[in-house]
């Protein structure tokens, strides 16, 4: 791998040193993450659909929760990862951080869309409406648009570095939305229920339903890490390809 990067000069070798280490690490983690994803989602889905009880109030409809809640958690978690990567790109100029943010944005958008769509499907039978402009739903919709904005901005520039830095600034501005989403149900009257799991006085959800939920959440997290690393590897290979092509045309 590193011999591909040797031709330009010592500086280029230095620039690729960290990514090369990353590639090795990502390569060895990949099978574990893939296995973890399949195992957790397999066990989690079985427990969610067959191995857990119906809710005393919501009946079988409660099973939407096992997809909706992990998707919504991931929507926030992926954004937090993008924000941390963006800060590390802007402050420490870490070469991989921009790629991590770029690789994460479409995944975060997909999780957010999944949370919105399953929430809508859940809202109709339980609340009696597909959509209402309450604090939680509106702030999550803004999060979805933020993700789309990040994807567009990253790809709006001729040079990938400039695109990544522009979208890093946008990502950090959007961080204010995260506490708003989390606490919207406490600050304002919302149609959406308050938190059931991440609350100070402990979960208000029966263990027979909490465990399948946590296993599903673990599966979603493994999936994100797996596909994110896969995408970063792809980006690195692409960057190297571009560098080689430049050498090809300039060097000879």
């Amino acid at each position: 791998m590193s011999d591909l990067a040797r031709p330009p000069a010592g500086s280029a070798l230095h620039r690729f040193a960290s990514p090369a280490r990353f590639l090795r690490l990502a390569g060895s983690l990949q099978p574990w993450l893939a296995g973890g994803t399949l195992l957790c989602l397999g066990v989690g889905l079985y427990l969610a659909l067959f191995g857990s009880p119906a809710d005393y109030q919501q009946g079988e409809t409660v099973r939407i929760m096992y997809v909706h809640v992990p998707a919504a958690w991931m929507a926030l978690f992926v954004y937090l990862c993008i924000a941390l990567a963006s800060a590390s790109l802007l402050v420490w100029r870490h070469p991989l951080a921009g790629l991590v943010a770029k690789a994460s944005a479409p995944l975060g958008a997909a999780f957010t869309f999944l949370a919105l769509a399953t929430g809508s499907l859940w809202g109709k039978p339980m609340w009696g409406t597909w959509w209402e402009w309450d604090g939680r739903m509106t702030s999550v919709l803004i999060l979805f648009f933020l993700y789309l904005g990040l994807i567009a901005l990253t790809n709006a520039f001729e040079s990938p570095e400039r695109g990544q830095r522009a979208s890093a600034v946008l990502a950090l501005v959007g961080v204010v939305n995260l506490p708003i989403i989390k606490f919207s149900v406490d600050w304002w009257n919302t149609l959406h229920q308050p938190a059931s799991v991440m609350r100070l006085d402990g979960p208000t959800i029966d263990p027979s339903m909490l465990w399948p939920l946590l296993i599903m959440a673990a599966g979603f997290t493994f999936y994100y890490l797996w596909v994110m690393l896969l995408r970063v590897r792809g980006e690195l290979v692409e960057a190297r390809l571009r560098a080689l092509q430049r050498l090809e045309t300039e060097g000879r």
Partner: protein
Amino acid sequence: MTRKRRRLTILLLALLSLGTATALVLSAFDDNLVFFYSPTKLKAAELPPERLVRVGGLVLPGSVEKGPGSRVAFAITDNAAEVAVVYEGILPDLFREGQGVVAQGRLEPGGRFRAVEVLAKHDENYMPPEVAEALKESGEWRPAEGSDPKAGYATQ
């Protein structure tokens, strides 16, 4: 101060001021951000009668009268004040006495609330039916939205 140090300081200061600005804006808009009024707030707000508003709270036990036809009359309470509601249409499955609901409509001059839409809320408690039964039998049952102030009706 190194350049990295300076960039980090600028970033943190920018985030701090952005957060402060957002907090100020949100608290300034507070009244316009509520999804629904509690009965107490609705009475205090003195809204013009033609204004479409939402009122949320618990369906007062014993207040539901059905008929004629699809007409339903009930009262919404926040344990401090209550508002009488009339509604014509289909109620959500979760609608029942003691349940959290949000009604959208207009306050009539007589103080009665004419709803055009009724939505049901559910609380943050999830459990199998057997556990709910056991809790009721042992007297540990807390009707979540009524007695628990954290559920939000009494506080707003």
